[in-house]
């Protein structure tokens, strides 16, 4: 019986945020047969979420940076790249076979070069009560605004730190929303540490925009700085937010909606499941893939671009996407014209300008340990409702890492596949054992990284490729076991 054919592409890009759209556009313009897969119904990733078709009219609420995303979308759709919306990629093999679900059907394709641009997600913020109704991420509120023109009603509190928190505050104010308070958890000590990088930051494109944002927000909002402790209180539903300033006493305020944010982290599940090595980044307090200057990994033909390769914001994501696209062209031998070479010089110059400003932001907004490493009854694993106390208890019993812990607590075995508990568990175990997160390692991630029904799997053509996608190949398994840093001692 002959194997049913799998469509082969020159370049496959996963994720239609700034990095993915830029990579696909560059690859396609150079003549590569390119496909761009994205699970959302329309392009833009999260930062440009809903930019095509947002119900929010152009004007005061969403700024010029957001609308710039529309130009990038136009650029991408004007090329011959095949853009597939609603495609949920659940597997990528080391030899670049991609399995995804589209319209309830599992499909496969093969590519000579794969660029993963799955972007970032919010850092977990495991305060007491973070699972109560009425508590959401700041990003969620932004998405509701951009995709549905929806804003919080009732008493609204923002809490955390980082540029996106201020951006959201500004957007909500512009939309006429009353924000009752911003509880700023930026540690005081960070200001001193960030000072070293201030000069470079002042000269970067971030400075003017950041300053304008802060001025707009702080003048019109109650901002409470140096918040050292936070809790969401209520019976099933949020009713109050409690906090402390410095060493001070607990204060409370009534609230209906609490929006949490303390930075973003790479969305690593697909890259890690494909076998891309990840290392602990102490500056950004997260796992990031090991990549070269163009996003290339140790896996031949597989690159990571954008925030998924390390948090650096939308502008850098787009530039890195273009670099990754160029690298794909160079690897496969597409048509690189003089225009592209000039572009590359320009892109690298822009990249340098933006990158100069990042260390300041990383230092200033480095989240405090008490908000990354919870105590007691605070829920660590939202899916399986495992608490910090339970995690510490199992470390006391001799559990040494996150993968062994799964067997004891089911922590990390819920539907989110460790996305919302991974970092917390690694840092908690590290703290409990007095080791570094790098030594503790992360969850061993395997395909399928997104839900796929048994029906869909059964309906895949019974080819070698399909079998490989469903059951991780022994070759991949052997590689992942010998890699020392991927999962610590386990």
């Amino acid at each position: 019986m002959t194997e049913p054919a799998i469509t082969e592409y020159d370049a496959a890009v996963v994720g239609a945020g700034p990095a993915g759209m830029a990579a696909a556009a560059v690859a396609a313009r150079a003549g590569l047969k390119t496909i761009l897969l994205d699970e959302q119904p329309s392009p833009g990733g999260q930062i440009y979420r809903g930019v095509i078709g947002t119900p929010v009219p152009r004007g005061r609420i969403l700024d010029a940076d957001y609308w710039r995303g529309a130009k990038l979308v136009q650029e991408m759709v004007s090329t011959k790249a095949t853009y597939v919306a609603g495609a949920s990629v659940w597997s990528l093999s080391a030899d670049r076979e991609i399995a995804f679900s589209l319209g309830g059907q599992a499909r496969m394709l093969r590519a000579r070069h794969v660029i993963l641009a799955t972007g970032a997600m919010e850092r977990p913020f495991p305060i007491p009560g973070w699972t109560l109704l009425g508590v959401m991420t700041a990003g969620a509120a932004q998405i509701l605004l951009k995709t549905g023109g929806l804003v919080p009603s009732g008493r609204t509190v923002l809490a955390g730190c980082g540029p996106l928190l201020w951006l959201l505050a500004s957007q909500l104010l512009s939309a006429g929303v009353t924000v009752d308070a911003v509880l700023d958890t930026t540690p005081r000590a960070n200001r001193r540490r960030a000072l070293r990088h201030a000069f470079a930051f002042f000269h970067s494109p971030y400075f003017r925009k950041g300053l304008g944002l802060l001025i707009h927000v702080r003048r019109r909002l109650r901002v409470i700085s140096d918040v050292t402790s936070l809790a969401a209180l209520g019976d099933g539903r949020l009713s109050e937010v409690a906090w402390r300033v410095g060493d001070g006493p607990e204060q409370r305020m009534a609230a209906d909606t609490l929006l949490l944010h303390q930075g973003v982290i790479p969305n690593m599940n697909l890259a890690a499941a494909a076998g891309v090595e990840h290392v602990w980044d102490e500056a950004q307090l997260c796992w990031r893939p090991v990549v070269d200057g163009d996003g290339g990994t140790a896996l031949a033909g597989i690159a990571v671009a954008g925030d998924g390769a390390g948090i650096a914001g939308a502008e850098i994501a787009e530039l890195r996407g273009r670099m990754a696209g160029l690298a794909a062209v160079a690897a496969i031998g597409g048509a690189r014209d003089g225009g592209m070479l000039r572009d590359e010089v320009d892109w690298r110059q822009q990249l340098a300008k933006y990158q100069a400003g990042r260390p300041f932001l990383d230092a200033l907004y480095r989240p405090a340990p008490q908000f990354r490493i919870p105590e007691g009854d605070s829920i660590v694993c939202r899916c399986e409702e495992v608490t910090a106390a339970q995690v510490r208890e199992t470390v006391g019993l001799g559990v040494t890492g996150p993968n062994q812990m799964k067997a004891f607590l089911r922590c990390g075995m819920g539907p989110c596949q460790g996305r919302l508990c991974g970092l917390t568990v690694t840092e908690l175990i590290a703290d409990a054992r007095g080791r570094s997160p790098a030594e503790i390692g992360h969850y061993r991630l395997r395909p399928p990284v997104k839900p796929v029904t048994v029906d869909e799997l059964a309906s895949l053509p019974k080819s070698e490729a399909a079998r490989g996608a469903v059951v991780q190949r022994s070759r991949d398994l052997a590689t992942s076991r010998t890699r020392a840093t991927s999962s610590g001692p386990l």
Partner: protein
Amino acid sequence: MFRRLPDLVAADAATITVDGRTVTARAGDNVAAALLAAGLDSCRTTPVSGAARAPYCMMGVCFDCLVTIEAQGSRQACLTPVRDGMVVETQQGARKAAVP
């Protein structure tokens, strides 16, 4: 607790049912946004403790917005665009295998 801004770009209404109740949404909404806009605080209760949950991240990573859509369980509401006539059901506890 969410409300629609006034003066949004015009769009068709999309009517879905949630646990048999008619809910009017906008074309282009995802199911999670539609539920929140309709004042539905919670879309499921957890398998472990029965705690009420609602959409948390709106981007497909938290898996708290799981609902049953067109009889298929544990679909991520935030990743599913509404369609006129869509049948949505909230989920209580763990999924049970269908018994013939």
